């Protein structure tokens, strides 16, 4: 466990309203530590095909913008681009979202929040890397506090190149992702579960103040 952990995450004794004293260990009591497992669709092929179609036609994007690309996600819902007609919706909570768009450069501080949000999403879930920064660091290639390859930290389904890509490119990317999902190739969540150790090691290499459990939910 980390030495310089935040005060509120340390083990402490709490007195309840009925006068009983008990010990609280926030990291263990408030979070789940079970690692993710590989989930397969235990259905016949035709049902899985129907489900994949439904997953492709109903993509809920997590409303989380990390870099300059966040500004390119908003116009998708406007009359000009109208992503609703492709079954795309914004969703404010990671629990209900299926698609995480990492929109541009990702600082180490944000990466921590991104991991927590990603782990709260339910299987199957998809990640799109938007812009050059998520591929090779882009114009932040020699920055000390941004990550360079998103694929080292989260399983990316699809990259969209550009600096910045226009909303049209993002929309084209989403439609490309739909064809991937329909073909049954959107298995990022299982990839994450399978290579969990590797992803965690990579994440911990850059995040120095790791004060959360290895798996949040």
């Amino acid at each position: 466990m980390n030495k310089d952990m935040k005060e509120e995450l340390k083990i402490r004794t709490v007195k309840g309203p009925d006068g009983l004293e008990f010990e609280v260990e926030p990291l263990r009591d408030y979070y789940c530590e079970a690692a993710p497992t590989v989930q397969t669709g235990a259905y016949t092929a035709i049902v899985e095909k129907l489900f994949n179609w439904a997953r492709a036609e109903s993509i809920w994007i997590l409303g989380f913008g990390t870099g300059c690309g966040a500004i390119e996600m908003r116009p998708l819902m406007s009359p000009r681009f109208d992503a609703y007609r492709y079954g795309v919706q914004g969703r404010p909570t990671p629990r209900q979202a299926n698609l995480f768009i990492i929109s541009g450069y990702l600082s180490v501080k944000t990466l921590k929040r991104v991991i927590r949000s990603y782990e709260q999403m339910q299987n199957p879930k998809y990640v799109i890397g938007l812009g050059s920064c998520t591929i090779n660091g882009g114009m932040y290639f020699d920055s000390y506090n941004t990550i360079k390859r998103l694929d080292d930290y989260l399983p990316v389904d699809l990259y969209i190149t550009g600096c910045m890509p226009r909303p049209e490119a993002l929309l084209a990317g989403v439609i490309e992702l739909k064809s991937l999902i329909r073909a049954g190739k959107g298995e990022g969540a299982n990839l994450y579960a399978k290579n969990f150790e590797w992803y965690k090691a990579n994440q911990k290499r850059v995040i120095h103040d790791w004060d959360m459990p290895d798996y949040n939910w």
Partner: protein
Amino acid sequence: MQFEWIKIPLSLMTLFIVFNYGMLMTAFVQKISARIGRRHGIPIYQNYVDMIKNYALRSSITHGVMFYLGPVFRLTGGIGLLLFVPSIYGSELFSNLSFSGDLILAIYFVFFGTLGMALGAGESGHPYAAIGVTRGLAQVTTSELPFALAVFAIALQYQTLSITEIVAAQQGGVANWTLFTNPFAVAAAMIAFLGSMMRPPFDVVLAPQEIPIGPPTEYHSSYLALMQTNRAIFPIAKTVLFMNLFFGGASNWPVFFLKVFLIYMVSVFVGVAFPRFRVEQSIRWFLIWGLPLGILGIMMA
């Protein structure tokens, strides 16, 4: 009275019709608002796809027993309300499970889902859920006040607690509707209707911009799908209740669809025209405008 078992499949048929109507109608309303914004909008079958998708998610987590029961209670509220109110007047097939005291039960079912949701969302432990539930309960409770008064008024006016008899008393022309025989009670009830439809100006409970969607924040996969099912049924069931009490009921399905759509659109029109109320503003609004109208309605009856 002998219970007729054939009523069970018949009321399930009503449930099936109303469910599909609700799914398509809410999509249709979204489509209309998209066209007003010069967009294409969602496909008309989008609600079905969303629901299949949510049932098809592979993993789901739980926060406890009430977390499971919350959506179940909510769905029970919707289905219960629908099943104990006659949907088609004068039809043996679609009178559902209505009986002589069903008005009281219907009022109870209107509130039941909100309570279940409060327990479930409370157990999810998310602060936004707690805020949303607090707001929701405060708002729904005050909006129930004018509605309860309006229901008392018409129970007095028609001297019955049976919805079927209330509908029967309104037959024979538009002038016999409660809307014209007791306009104050109807006005009070419509104010309550606006308050319970989760549309602006009374949607601070969900408030997508500040407390991300409120009570259902932690709900996902099949829990959310259950709640989506209820989203299709409950507003329609509530509208059916209002149609029966105040707008003369419906004697066949086309009239039913038309009236439900029009009554539903009342809340949509008010929603697009007015900005969102804060909770204390909406409570004050219900008490200042809804309550006196309800009392006037009782005095008229």
